[in-house]
C-alpha cells in the first residue's frame, strides 16, 4: 500500500488538475455563448446567399455556358478537401470526429483511384493527418493569431480555393467541419462546395421571374466566389461554437472524474491512516502486556 505521504501528494495533485479543468470549463462556457451567438447571427447571410444563388441557377437556361464554379469542370478526378479543425486541444472528440469523417472520405476517393489533395485549417487537423496523408497536404492554414473569427480570414481560405480551381488543380472541393447542434452534440459535416450542390433546387418551388441587373451569368460569376467564402465562413463559425461546446462538456467530465478520484483517494488515505494508528496501538498494548 502506498505510504501516507504519497497519497497526500496524489490527492493534492488531482485537486489542482481539477481546478484547471474547472477553470477551462468556465472559460469554454463563456466563449461558447459568444460563439453560439455569432453562429446564429451569421446564418441569415449564408442562407440568403444560398437562396439567391438557387434562384439564379434556376434562371440559367444555358447549362453548357454556366460558370465552372457552378457546374464543375465536367470531370471528377482530383478532389480537394478542406479539413477544418481547431488550433487548440483538450476539446474531447471534436477534432477526432472531423478527422474520422474526413478519413472515410479520403479512403473512398483513393479506392476509386482518384487524386486527393488536402488543405488543413487549424493546427490540430494537420497534426493528426500528417502521418497518414502527409504527402497529400498541399497547404496548411492556421488562424491562431486572430482572436475572433472574422470574414476576412474565411475570405483568405476562399481565395486560395478559387485560385487553385482556376488553375485547374482540382475538380471537386469538399469542406469538413462540425456542425453545432447543442453542447453535447456536434455533427461532423461533409459539404461539397465546388461544383455547387443544387439538389435542393426541386424543393425551392417559388418560381419567380426576377429582373437581373447586370445579366444573370455576370451576377453568378461574381457571386459564386463570394458564396465559397461565405460557406467557409459559416463552417468556421459552426466549428468554433462546436469547439467550445465540445471543450465544455469534455472539461465538465474531467472535473467530475477528478472529483471521484479525490473521493476514492481520500477514503484510501483515511483507511491507511487508521490502519497505522491501530498498528501503533497494538504495538503499545502488547509491549505493555509483556512487562
Amino acid at each position: 500500500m502506498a505510504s501516507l505521504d504519497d497519497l497526500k501528494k496524489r490527492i493534492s495533485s488531482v485537486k489542482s488538475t481539477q481546478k484547471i479543468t474547472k477553470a477551462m470549463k468556465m472559460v469554454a462556457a463563456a466563449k461558447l455563448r459568444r460563439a453560439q451567438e455569432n453562429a446564429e447571427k451569421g446564418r441569415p447571410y449564408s442562407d440568403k446567399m444560398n437562396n439567391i444563388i438557387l434562384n439564379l441557377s434556376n434562371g440559367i437556361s444555358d447549362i453548357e455556358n454556366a460558370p465552372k464554379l457552378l457546374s464543375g469542370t465536367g470531370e471528377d478526378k482530383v478532389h480537394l478537401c478542406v479539413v477544418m479543425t481547431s488550433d487548440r486541444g483538450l476539446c474531447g472528440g471534436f477534432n477526432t470526429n472531423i478527422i474520422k469523417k474526413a478519413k472515410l472520405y479520403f479512403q473512398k476517393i483513393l479506392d476509386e483511384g482518384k487524386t486527393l489533395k488536402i488543405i488543413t485549417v487549424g493546427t490540430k487537423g494537420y497534426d493528426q493527418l500528417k502521418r497518414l496523408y502527409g504527402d497529400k497536404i498541399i497547404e496548411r492554414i492556421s488562424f491562431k493569431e486572430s482572436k475572433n473569427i472574422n470574414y476576412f480570414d474565411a475570405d483568405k481560405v476562399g481565395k486560395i480555393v478559387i485560385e487553385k480551381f482556376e488553375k485547374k488543380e482540382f475538380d471537386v472541393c469538399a469542406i469538413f467541419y462540425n456542425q453545432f447542434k447543442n453542447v453535447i452534440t456536434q455533427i461532423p459535416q461533409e459539404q461539397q462546395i465546388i461544383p455547387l450542390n443544387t439538389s435542393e433546387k426541386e424543393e425551392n418551388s417559388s418560381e419567380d421571374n426576377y429582373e437581373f441587373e447586370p445579366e444573370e451569368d455576370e451576377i453568378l460569376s461574381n457571386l459564386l466566389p463570394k458564396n465559397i467564402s461565405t460557406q467557409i465562413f459559416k463552417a468556421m463559425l459552426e466549428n468554433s461554437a462546436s469547439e467550445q461546446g465540445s471543450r465544455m462538456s469534455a472539461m465538465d467530465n474531467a472535473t467530475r472524474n477528478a472529483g471521484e478520484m479525490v473521493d476514492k483517494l481520500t477514503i484510501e488515505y483515511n483507511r491507511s491512516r487508521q490502519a497505522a494508528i491501530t498498528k501503533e496501538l497494538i504495538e503499545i498494548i502488547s509491549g505493555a502486556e509483556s512487562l
Partner: protein
Amino acid sequence: MSEEYSVEIVNPEKSFLSKNDVTEVVVPAFEGEIGILKDHISIISFLKPGIIKIFSKSGEESFYINDGIIEFKDNNLSILTSLILNLKDIDKEKISEIQKSAEEELNKSDINDQEKYLLDQKLEVLKSIN
C-alpha cells in the same frame, strides 16, 4: 394603402439592420443608382461601392457599403454586404484606412478593368465622404 415595405441588411457577422417602415431605398447598383419603392418587380442586382440611402417614417439614413447584392421580392428587400458603415457615426480614420488600401490595390499592375473601375468608384465615394 400604406407605402411601406421592409428592408434587411445583413453582413457575414450579423444582421446589421432590419426595418419595416421603409418607403424608399436608393442603392448604388452596378449600372447606376436604383431607387426602390413598394411593389417593385422582383430584382436581383449587384452593388458597387457607394452610399445606400434609406427613407423611412423615422427619417433618412445613409450607409457606406463596400460591395453587395440586393434581392427584392414580395416587398422584402435583402441587402447582403461584406462591409457596411453608418455615415452618422463614421470614423474618419477608418475611412482613410479603406481609402489607403484601395489606393494600394489600384497601384498593383495585375488588376483588370473591372476591378479598376470598382476601385475608382470606391475612392471617389470615400473622398466625397471625407
